[in-house]
Every structure is written in structure tokens, then in C-alpha cells.
């Protein structure tokens, strides 16, 4: 499988706080990488850097070999960098279905407004079908016409995942997809992530649920204080007393 994302010596600091300190990370198509570490390690900041929500102080980010470091966030998403957010960030004024319809990856060169152009009936219908299919994957079709604010946090997480899936690009970044999710949905999400990886996408998951990472990820990356401390399997990391101490404190 080919390399989808490569970050090289990525650095970012906010005043005295270093959130990325020379990060070298590679995401390969078809693989799922689990990003773990204690709160404040810089995991979400790394997602923000790759997706363009924040701009790196130095270093570079390559998407399929092309530099994207200087591109604005919306441009990176159009090129295929899709993400979910730690706190969902669904649009509260729009229904669940509308949230997904808006997440259809805009065509390159798009419309003047940068929004989805006024598409024809066939295109609208196929986008709607795609949206319902993504909701079906996370068992949320019944909520299609409800507002996100009417749903529990866990259900919002599922919708958030479905929205991220609407962008069919090569890179999928999932920020704590399991937070608040229990029961049958847990297995659904695992199946969804596995299927997406099997289709050739490079997936990176930030997650505190270690058993989820263990079940799902081909590789784990341990971060602490803005740096990658170790890369390997989750079993190796769980057995390491040093990493356990860094994760849980002394």
C-alpha cells in the first residue's frame, strides 16, 4: 500500500506550550494507526496540523507525495483529508441528514461560493443516498431528520463519524470516535473503520479506549509532550512500565 500522509519535523508551539515537537508520522493506505497518550500529549493538535485547522511553525506535511502545509483547511479537505472532532462539532441548526449532505466532498475548483453548487436532481439524489448509506453504517438512519442537539453525546459521535465518512478521500482522521459509545454501536464502529481501511484509506484514530486500539489498529503511536515517544504494537506499549507511567503518572 502507498504512503498517504507523511509529516516531517512538524513543530508547533503556543507561547511556551509545545504541542508538536519535530513530529515524523507516516500513514499508509489500508492501515489503521492508533494515536495514544495522556491528555495534553498533542494528539488532537497533530490532527489540527494535518487537517489545517492550525498552521505549523515549521516542518512539512505531504498528502500522496504533494506538499499541503501551506494550503488552507478547506483545500486540504477537498484533496481528501477528512476528520472528525473530539467534541463532534455537528451543526446544531441543521438536521443530521443536512449535516451529512453538506459533508459531500466539494468538487475541485467548486463553485464561486465554495459551497456545493446547486446540483441537479440526479446528483442531489445520489448524495442523499450516500448520506443515508453512511448513517446506515452507524445505525443512525432513524435520526436522519432530527437535530443533533436532540441526540445523546454518544449518538452524536456516531453521526460525527458518518459525516467524516462522506468525504471519500484517502486520509481519515478520527478523534476519539468511541467516546460515549457503547453496546452494539461499538462493534459497528469497528466494522466501519475496518471496511474503510480495507478500501485503501489511511486511517489514524485518537482514542483512550485501549482495547479498541488493540482490536483495530495495525500500529500504535505513543505521544507525550508534543513528541512521538514510541511506535509499535499496542501490546508492546502496554507492557512498557515507562509508557504506563507517562500515561497514568507516577
Amino acid at each position: 500500500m502507498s504512503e498517504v500522509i507523511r509529516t516531517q519535523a512538524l513543530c508547533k508551539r503556543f507561547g511556551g506550550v509545545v504541542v508538536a515537537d519535530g513530529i515524523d508520522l507516516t500513514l499508509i493506505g489500508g492501515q489503521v494507526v492508533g494515536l495514544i497518550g495522556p491528555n495534553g500529549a498533542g494528539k488532537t493538535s497533530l490532527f489540527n496540523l494535518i487537517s489545517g485547522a492550525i498552521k505549523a511553525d515549521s516542518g512539512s506535511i505531504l498528502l500522496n507525495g504533494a506538499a499541503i502545509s501551506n494550503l488552507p483547511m478547506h483545500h486540504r479537505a477537498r484533496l481528501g483529508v477528512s476528520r472528525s472532532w473530539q467534541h463532534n462539532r455537528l451543526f446544531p441548526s441543521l438536521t443530521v441528514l443536512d449535516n451529512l449532505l453538506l459533508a459531500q466532498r466539494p468538487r475541485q475548483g467548486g463553485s464561486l461560493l465554495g459551497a456545493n453548487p446547486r446540483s441537479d436532481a440526479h446528483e442531489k439524489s445520489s448524495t442523499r443516498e450516500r448520506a443515508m448509506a453512511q448513517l446506515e453504517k452507524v445505525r443512525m438512519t432513524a435520526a436522519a431528520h432530527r437535530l443533533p442537539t436532540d441526540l445523546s453525546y454518544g449518538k452524536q459521535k456516531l453521526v460525527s463519524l458518518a459525516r467524516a465518512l462522506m468525504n471519500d478521500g484517502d486520509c481519515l482522521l478520527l478523534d476519539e470516535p468511541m467516546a460515549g459509545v457503547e453496546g452494539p454501536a461499538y462493534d459497528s464502529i469497528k466494522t466501519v473503520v475496518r471496511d474503510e481501511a480495507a478500501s485503501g484509506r489511511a486511517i489514524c484514530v485518537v482514542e483512550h479506549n485501549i482495547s479498541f486500539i488493540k482490536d483495530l489498529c495495525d500500529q500504535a503511536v505513543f505521544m507525550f509532550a508534543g513528541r512521538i515517544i514510541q511506535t509499535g504494537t499496542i501490546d508492546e506499549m502496554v507492557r512498557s512500565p515507562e509508557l504506563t507511567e507517562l500515561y497514568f503518572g507516577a
Partner: protein
Amino acid sequence: MEFVGSMLIQIGIFTILATSFNLIIGYGGLMSIAHPIFFALGAYGSALITQATGLPVPLGILFGMTLATLASVALALPSLRVSGDYLVIASIGFQLGLLQIIKNSDWSGGPGGLTNIPPMIATVGPAAIWSYVAIVGIAALASILVVRWLVSGDYGRAITAMRDDEEAFKGLGHDAVSLKLVLFATGSGLAGFAGGLYGHYFLFVTPEQFEILYSAAMLTMVVVGGIRTVWGPALGAVLLQFMPQAINFLKLPSSVTGPLQGILFTGLVLVFLFLRPHGLLGHAPGVRAVVQEDDPTEAPAK
């Protein structure tokens, strides 16, 4: 009857102003108080070009509208790239600065204003007034329909999402700056359109007619009628145009009517913001939610 005609013309012009302001602050969520200056640019631009070149009035109005649109892009482009907050600050400076230039320039007639503006309808009398009522009425309706078209369907969904959460919106591949720019430029262009109609009806304009406080009047129309509703600003314009006339009927001294009008405008905004923030024609947030039975296949709430 001429009084009624004149009132209707003012209602039509303020309907365009309030509708365009609603597009900017309501639908776009862009806080700007420079709307009166775009109104002024339309009025002065159209008046000056028709005076100087003899251009037909409709083309002059188009020129004034274009001038207001271009000026709004010049204001918004640097402000919107950084953060919406900068637009508020920049708009204050833009409004005050440009009005000072108009007040202190010879070409604009200075503080005394501009007179002898060519009329759109050369004849005088009731027929001319009612013709102008029809023109302004069609213009107001067209403005409302333009805004309705813009805020419906795919674009409407995008505008709502951008207002809800700009960063998440960008994360889905949408260019928020371009969208905000389009909203701001369209709203400001419509204000310029209203300015052109205003100048060619009253046939004189002065800087006092475009002071920053008129933003408050426009805001009152939007809030009272219904922010983020298509027809609300028009209703607000009707009510807010009738209110000063109603005060005049009380035959109070002019030293009282001026401040009383200001107090009533401010009071109305406060009352509506506290008691009915969605205005007369708006719906309370969340009413669109369709209540359905929980799907048993969904994960249980935590």
C-alpha cells in the same frame, strides 16, 4: 394621498435596507455597522454620475450599487480573512472615515449635501409618486426574492453551517471566506441599490442621512420583524416607518419627539431580545426538530 405614497416609498426603501442587513448580520452572522455608508455610496454614487454625465437614472443606480459592492469587498476582504471580530472594528472605522470624507469634500456638497439630483420620473404630481411607489415596490420584492434564493437550498444549508461552526464548515471542504464575502457584498450592494432609489426620489442627500445611528434603526427592523426570516425585515420596516408618524400625531414638541423615537427604538430591541428574540415572524430555535421514537438499534445514551 401623496403622503401615503411617500410613506410607501420609504417603507420600500427601508425594506431593501433591512432585508440586506438581515442577510449580513442575520443569515451570515457577520457583525457590521457600516450598512449606512453603503446606503450613502449608492445614493451619492448614483447622484454624482447622473449629474456629471447625464447617464440615465437606472444606470446611475446600477453604478451606485456597484460602487457599494466594490467598497464592501475592499472592507471585508482583509477583515474576514482574519476573524469576524475584525469586521466590527473595521466597519466602524470605514463608516466614520468615509462619512467624514463625504462631509468635508466639495464634490459631495460637503455638510450641506448634494442637491439637484436628477429624478427618475421627470414629471411631478400624484401619477409620478405612484409610479415611483410601483418601482420601489418591485425593487423591494426583487431584493427579498434575491435573499430568499440565496438562503435556500444548498447555499442556505452552507450559510447556516458556516454560521453555526466556521471551523467545522471549513473542515468539510468549504471556503468560508468566499461565502462570507459573497453575503457581505450582496447585502452591501443591495444597500447601495436602496441608496440610489432614495437619492433619485428625494432629489437631495446630506451626510446626516447616513449617520452610524441608522444602523440601530435597521437592526431594530430586523430584530422586531424576525432575524433570519425572509419577510421579517419587511414587516419591521413597515412598523418602524409608521412608529415615528404615530409619534408625530401626539403633537409633542420636537425637543421631545427626537429622543422619544430613539428611546422607543432602543426599547423595542431590548424588549424583543428578552421576550421574543426570534422576532414577530421567526420561530424559536429547535422547532424544526422532528420528534421520533428512538431506534432500538442505536447505542444507549451514556
